[in-house]
């Protein structure tokens, strides 16, 4: 039938057109040597620094080339990597959030790095303990730290002066913090003492965890089989949040759109608990200071969320190149170069012993507190596949208390039951 042939011919034509156009793109031609693909989510300054480092690597290693590919945003990295295994176009090395490690642990193509990092030359213990633990799942090292940060207290000095409140110190207690926030709050001028990201996501959870840990609590038991946060410490931490958000109304509850930072810049919020990534977004006209989180009985511990480079197997040769490249990229002198270019914190303790470290401190004086605060990271979040479900339950708990929808004890009981059934189900 003429019609069918016509339509079929048209269709074939379209396909041919598409195929021809795809051909123009071309694939990475390798001339004898190995080429590995590295997926990253760096933008702006970090992307430029990374590109420069890869260029340096490629110049020194003509037979082991690295092709850098942008992953369209780290928020999508895990999903894209998992899809890559299905489609067969997965990378050799990928930047992943630390929380993704447990989900990828089940992936057969994932390269176990335990033996690599245990070699003396790698000097695994040079990484901060929190980074080491974030990279380990069930006793195996599945990634190399790519980025480390932590939460510290960032405050607007002008607002403290205006309210006549003494500036925060490294020895502040929870009460000092709460009282200051209350005094800094003015409903008439719509200013708040503190801001809390209250979208129920991990952003909500990881500001609660330092409070829980400071008060002596634990999220789960030591073998991650049962919840343990339904405790006196868990309640004390929630009581503080309830007291500030519901009783004092001294907390701006950010619904996840990131307004808190713009409000801080506009002098509407006096204190934030945030990390080094936010510093570049604080406007030049804001005079701010940084100190440790307020503490409980002198315990000022904080939380860190290290991200990782993970490697996936294509062939023996490519795997070897991938491991070699990751080792090089995270070695002290190479990473310090990256830190100086971007303001990222040092990954290895020995980076601060290198002579160029003074350049880093000169360029980013505010980051000193964050670097020092890395020593106050004592706990890590459990690296289990069901962590995202645990996080959802805890996030709902914190949110319900902040919104005044539940009493702390009641919220703890509900969340604890949910987490218990999640852990029992896996």
């Amino acid at each position, binding site marked *: 039938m003429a019609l069918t042939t016509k339509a079929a011919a048209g*269709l074939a034509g379209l396909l041919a057109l598409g195929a021809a156009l795809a051909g123009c793109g071309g694939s990475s031609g390798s001339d004898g040597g190995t080429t590995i693909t590295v997926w990253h989510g760096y933008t702006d300054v970090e992307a430029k620094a990374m590109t420069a480092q890869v260029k340096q690597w490629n110049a020194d290693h003509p037979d082991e080339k690295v092709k850098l590919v942008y992953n369209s945003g*780290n928020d999508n990295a895990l999903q894209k990597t998992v899809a890559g295994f299905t489609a067969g*176009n997965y990378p050799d090395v990928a930047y992943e959030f630390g929380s993704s490690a447990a989900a990828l642990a089940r992936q057969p193509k994932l390269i176990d790095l335990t033996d690599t990092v245990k070699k003396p030359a790698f000097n695994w213990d040079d990484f901060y303990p929190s980074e080491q633990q974030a990279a380990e799942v069930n006793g195996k090292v599945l990634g190399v730290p790519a980025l480390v940060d932590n939460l510290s207290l960032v405050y607007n000095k002008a607002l403290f002066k205006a309210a006549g409140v003494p500036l925060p110190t490294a020895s502040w207690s929870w009460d000092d913090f709460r009282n200051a926030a209350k005094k800094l709050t003015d409903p008439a001028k719509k200013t708040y003492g503190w801001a809390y990201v209250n979208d129920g996501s991990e952003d909500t959870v990881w500001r609660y965890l330092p409070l829980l840990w400071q008060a002596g609590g634990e999220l789960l038991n030591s073998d991650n089989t049962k919840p343990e946060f339904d405790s006196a410490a868990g309640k004390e931490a929630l009581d503080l949040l309830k007291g500030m958000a519901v009783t004092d109304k001294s907390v701006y509850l950010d619904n996840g759109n990131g307004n808190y930072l713009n409000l801080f810049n506009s002098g509407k919020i006096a204190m934030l608990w945030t990390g080094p990534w936010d510093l570049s977004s604080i406007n030049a006209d804001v005079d701010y200071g940084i100190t440790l989180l307020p503490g409980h009985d002198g315990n000022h511990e904080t939380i860190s969320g290290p991200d990782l480079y993970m490697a996936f197997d294509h062939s023996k040769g490519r795997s070897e190149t991938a491991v070699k490249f990751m080792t090089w990229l995270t070695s002290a002198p190479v990473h310090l170069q990256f830190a100086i270019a971007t303001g990222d914190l040092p990954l290895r303790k020995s980076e601060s012993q290198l002579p160029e470290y003074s350049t880093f401190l000169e360029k980013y004086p505010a980051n000193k507190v964050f670097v020092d605060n890395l020593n106050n990271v004592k706990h890590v979040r459990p690296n289990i596949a069901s962590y995202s479900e645990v996080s959802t339950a805890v996030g709902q708990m914190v949110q319900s208390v902040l919104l005044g929808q539940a009493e702390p004890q009641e919220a703890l009981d509900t969340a604890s039951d949910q987490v218990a059934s999640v852990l029992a189900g896996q």
Partner: protein
Amino acid sequence: MARSLRLRAPSPWHLVLLPLALVMLVPLIWMLVTSLSTLAETHRFPPGLPSSLHWESYAQAWNDSPLAHWLLNSTIVSVTCVVSNLVLCSLAGYAFARIPFAGSRLLFLGILATLMVPFQVVMIPTLLIVKQLGLVDSLPALIVPNLVTPFGIYLLRQFFLSLPAELEEAATIDGAGRVRILFSILLPLMGPPLSTVAVLTFLQVWNDFLWPLVVTSSPETMTVQLGLASFQSAHFTNWPVLMASTLLSQLPVLLLFLFGQRYFVRSIATTGIK
């Protein structure tokens, strides 16, 4: 009083349409304002007007990224899909509306059924099929699943149903074939619905993020939407540049709509058919 008002104001409908237009334009205005502000100005709340116009974000969006290459990829993919949809959906929509053929109800329901599946559900199996076809990480991978949309078939079928049946009865007596009736008599009357299918297919393919994200990986096959994501990161978003590049990427669509309106709104009365 009423008369003098009517004399002064061209039409009272402006009083309805102007506020409506403003409400609809809020985001565009905000995007424009943001794109002309400095980064520091976008880090304030409540957001305000920029102190002076800063065009450098547009230069940065254009120079710092292969925006032209992304636009080209998106255009190739979208235009191919639009052409293919217009042809295939017209054929199928007409057959479903006008020819009572064996199995038509069942087939039509089957096609409708695929409308009801959220893409998140079928993403992984679709990926497997595209892999079997050997198309992963190529522009055809973005084109082939969108060559025909159930939505287009359904919409055109409904419009064919609303055309008077007499139009083709005369032609059938003349002995003209179905395809000739469709292309020479009916389609010229279908300007508005066809342009609707064209615009909506274009938009759907142009704005798609999730599918290009998972099926492509090399910079050569990157589309505009994936590219735009590079101005956004987990912890830091450069709003002026993001908005400048978003506007640049939406400009073709808006211009297309503005100039294509003639086809959209050409009424049946003006085509000379009674």
